[in-house]
């Protein structure tokens, strides 16, 4: 299904890119998200921060529509998460590089381009955008971890999706490359792309327009980086997170705290 033409209309523009209401998710016997309310505005870079196991990946999976949810709702770009029309409009990068080890960089991207139904020129465009030009003919399995995650990111950029959901895209990258990637994310946001980027590295927080702080399947804060520091009186994001944690007792036995 194609995206509806009225999606570009003014009233729709003001809608958030992502709106989750009372989102509860149960995996196995455990409730991992406990009635989450999250809103991500369009055209911004939103950081999703929290320790590992806090539910960041589960939240992202429910946004891209591959997570079964117990109750609540997730709206993405004005449609229910997972709607067929969203599959061209949302790009998703999983935590581990989800590309084919036994194909070259170009073969990988050529395939994902065909699946997306995007223009052929997209392959070269995303190769350049992610700085993969010298590696195009190398097998992905022979690349370093950081290079593999760039291939995975390149695949998500194909077709210039309106929303990018990136699960720890900068893990294992050297500082130079991290700065470059954040530059790329910023450039995409300036062109109107909405980005939700998870990280457990708190020093990346300052690069975001807004921060969502998660712990134990609950949202501790939804603030601008400056606002977060002001509210908590902390000197950096890590400190702010620790201070918030002190004020929020751990979630227990399904009871909201």
């Amino acid at each position, binding site marked *: 299904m194609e995206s509806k033409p009225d999606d570009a209309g003014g009233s729709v523009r003001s809608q958030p890119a992502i709106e989750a209401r009372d989102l509860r998710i149960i995996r196995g016997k455990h409730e991992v998200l406990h009635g989450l309310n999250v809103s991500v505005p369009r055209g911004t870079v939103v950081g999703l921060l929290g320790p590992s196991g806090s539910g960041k990946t589960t939240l992202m999976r429910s946004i891209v529509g591959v997570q079964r949810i117990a109750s609540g709702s997730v709206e993405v770009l004005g449609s229910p998460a997972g709607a067929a029309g969203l599959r061209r409009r949302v790009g998703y990068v999983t935590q581990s590089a*989800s590309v084919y080890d036994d*194909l070259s960089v170009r*073969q990988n991207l050529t395939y994902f381009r*065909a699946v997306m139904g995007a223009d052929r020129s997209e392959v070269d465009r995303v190769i350049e955008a992610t700085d993969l030009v010298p590696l195009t003919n190398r097998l992905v399995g022979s690349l370093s971890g950081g290079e593999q995650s760039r291939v995975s990111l390149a695949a998500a950029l194909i077709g210039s999706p309106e929303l990018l959901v990136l699960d720890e895209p900068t893990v294992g990258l050297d500082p130079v490359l991290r700065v470059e990637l954040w530059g790329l994310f910023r450039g995409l946001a300036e062109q109107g792309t909405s980005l939700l980027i998870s990280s457990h590295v708190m020093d990346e927080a300052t690069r975001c327009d807004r921060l969502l702080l998660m712990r134990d399947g609950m949202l501790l804060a939804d603030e601008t980086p400056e606002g977060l520091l002001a509210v908590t009186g902390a000197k950096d994001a890590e400190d702010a997170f620790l201070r918030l944690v002190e004020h929020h007792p751990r979630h227990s036995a399904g009871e909201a705290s």
Partner: protein
Amino acid sequence: MSFGRTFATAGRVLAQIGHDPRTIGLLLIVPSLLIGLMSWLFVDTPVFDRVGPAMLALFPFTIMFLVTSITTLRERRSGTLERLLTMPLGKADFILGYTLAFCLLAIMQAGIAVGFSIWVCGLVIEGSVWLLLAVALADAVLGTTLGLLASAFARTEFQVVQFMPVIIFPQVLLGGVFLPRDQLPDVLHAISDWLPLSHAIDALNAVAADSEDAAYVGGKLLIIAAYAIGAVILGSITLRRKTP
């Protein structure tokens, strides 16, 4: 479903295998080597002419099952399937793309195995060689589709390999290789009627001995095809976009 995406998926699977010469060797050469071994084993006896046709069903079926189930499982586990399911790829595009790619390999494999059996091992085929090839091919395709289905029920490579003894071995035991099916105890005979490999072996034996007409072999081919299509449909149903 889209032809473009199905063909792109098939091409991608073939490109992956193209980077893996060992798998190509396993797929194309090993069934012939095993058939050669059988014919050598029974070199001075009439046994090979009796069981040889069945071997054309057995080895390609087993090897296609193994290779397909593990390749598909790798896709499920590596996160690429999850990524594909967030993209505009239909579930049918995915399953049919895999089926198509492995069917192409199955055609080559069946061709090599049939040629090797006849011209190198001296297997006597009274009926049509083309019909023999068609049955061997249908059988390899059946192995592919059952492998696709089996991978849906396994979480690890370890588990999927263990489907071999569960799904493949009973079909081999009851398929008429060890004892002709009409000499099986009644209950086992009835069970073997429901196993697709039995029909493949029946058809291959009939072609080799030229004991039945083409309609009989065609009927058997239809049964095999029905199982293959059933496995593809079940495979599509078990493939879920949303997982817990």
